[in-house]
């Protein structure tokens, strides 16, 4: 599903690479946790997958698409196939919760009727029924995080990428979010999750890829986590 072959990323010539020859192979329906301290390169890795950034060297193939052969005008189509939960949510502050989720469907040409049917179902999955008409600012951090997840999954992507979705949450809410991701994974979506929350990693018992200074230092199934 996701294949990285010795991928490096250097943002500017004078700095050392943020990713250094990273190789990674993720099977369909897998649940992979990418761990590493702040600055290890987790977000950079995800940005390469969504083509927000281009790799400096190496090969990336996602869902059969070779990124070297991707044309600029094909990037939107690629992004529609990958659901992304951004580290900073990226919700639109002047749209309601419903509108924020519907937004992702509007841009792919879904009819209003279908949108009105789909959005409540997804809000139900993330336990936000009843918050449709709230504005993002009226929600707690955990709720906003779940709106971001709802928007990421509403188009039923084959791949879900979540960048530190538990970052600013207390343990209980963090675990709620993780349970939602597990549920989505059970429905058949490949999940790539980054975190530096040790407790979550230990409880999840999933494959863990550890990044340090842009390099993969370990890649183990059913792993715990220690820094």
């Amino acid at each position, binding site marked *: 599903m996701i294949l990285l072959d010795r991928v490096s990323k250097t943002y500017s010539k004078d700095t050392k690479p943020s990713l250094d020859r990273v190789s990674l192979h993720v099977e369909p329906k897998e649940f992979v946790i990418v761990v590493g301290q702040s600055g290890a390169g987790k977000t950079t890795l995800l940005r390469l997958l*969504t083509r*927000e950034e*281009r790799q400096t060297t190496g090969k990336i193939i996602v869902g059969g698409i070779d990124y070297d052969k991707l044309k*600029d*005008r094909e*990037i*939107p*189509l*690629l*992004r*529609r196939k990958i659901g*992304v939960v*951004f580290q900073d949510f*990226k919700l*639109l502050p002047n749209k309601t919760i419903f509108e924020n989720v519907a*937004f*992702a469907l*509007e*841009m*792919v*040409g*879904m*009819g209003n009727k279908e949108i009105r049917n789909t959005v409540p179902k997804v809000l139900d999955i993330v336990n936000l029924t009843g918050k449709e008409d709230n504005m993002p600012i009226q929600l707690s951090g955990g709720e906003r995080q779940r709106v971001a997840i709802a*928007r990421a999954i509403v188009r039923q992507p084959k791949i879900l990428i979540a960048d530190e979705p538990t970052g600013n949450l207390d343990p209980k809410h963090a675990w709620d979010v993780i349970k939602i991701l597990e549920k989505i994974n059970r429905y058949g979506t490949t999940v790539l999750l980054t975190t530096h929350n040790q407790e979550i990693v230990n409880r999840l018992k999933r494959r863990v890829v550890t990044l340090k200074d842009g390099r993969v230092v370990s890649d183990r199934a059913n792993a715990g986590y220690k820094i």
Partner: protein
Amino acid sequence: MGKKKLITFWRIVHTGMVNFARNISLAIAAMAIMVVTLTIVLFSLIINDTFSHTIYQITSKIDISVYLKDSVNQQQTAKLLGEIRSLSNVQSAAYLSKAQALKVYEAQNSSNQQLIQAVQETNNPLPATIIIKPRNLNDLSSIKSFLSLPAVNKLQTDPPSYSGQEKQAIDRITHATNVLREIGVVAVIVFAVVSVLIIFNTIQMAIFNRRDEIQIMRLLGASTSYIRGPFIVESIIYGVVSAMISVLIINEAFQASSTTLQASSLGLLDIGYANQFFTDKFLVLLILEVVLGIVIGAVSSLIATRRYLKFKSR
């Protein structure tokens, strides 16, 4: 697929309209300058047509009369007529016999019975006349030199008469029209450029105000046209609204201040005709203005979005 495209198209139009309403304060400056531009265009079109009409009207009345001696016979007349007609600047030449000339004279002076009586008593003193209508009034020299050839001159009783005063009026109007045309063209170009720049700037500002939203749309996989479309729709709305306002302005000008307009045009402008032209061609002029507004709006926003949305590689 077709249905999806239609939905997307309407969404783009809808978003453009919503953004237009939301950005109305920005839009006002852009539309004000566009209204000025389109009003100048419309005004120029009307003036131009009105002056052309006036010139045509006066031109068609202008002629040159050649008075023939009573001794000139039919054969000579026919030969002269043929020669005159073959001159390149002659549109037509008509022959009035002595009797016909008298009839015309009587008709022209029907109010003055004494004069008519005097003429009738003196056994028709009017000469047979050839009336020449020239094609181009500004170039009568070829006709004049032909008429002053000795062979031609000796057939004439009096020097030919030109409708001289009318010629002067025509010169004045032609000159005014040419000047106005030039001013109009320059003004239209200047204001169109200023309009494009200001709309360009407005769209740039709108893009700046919505940069977060645009970035999020990109990351969520919105297509280029879905992001760009609303800005173009928005500036097309500027064009359409401005066109309508400018047509309204001209309409009001005719309604309210035709006397001022008359005075300010030195009496050269045939307000009646201008108004008639505006009324008759209302639909065509409206469409023309709307199309022009749309073109100005679309061009500026196409350039602005290309420049500031930086579609490449992101």
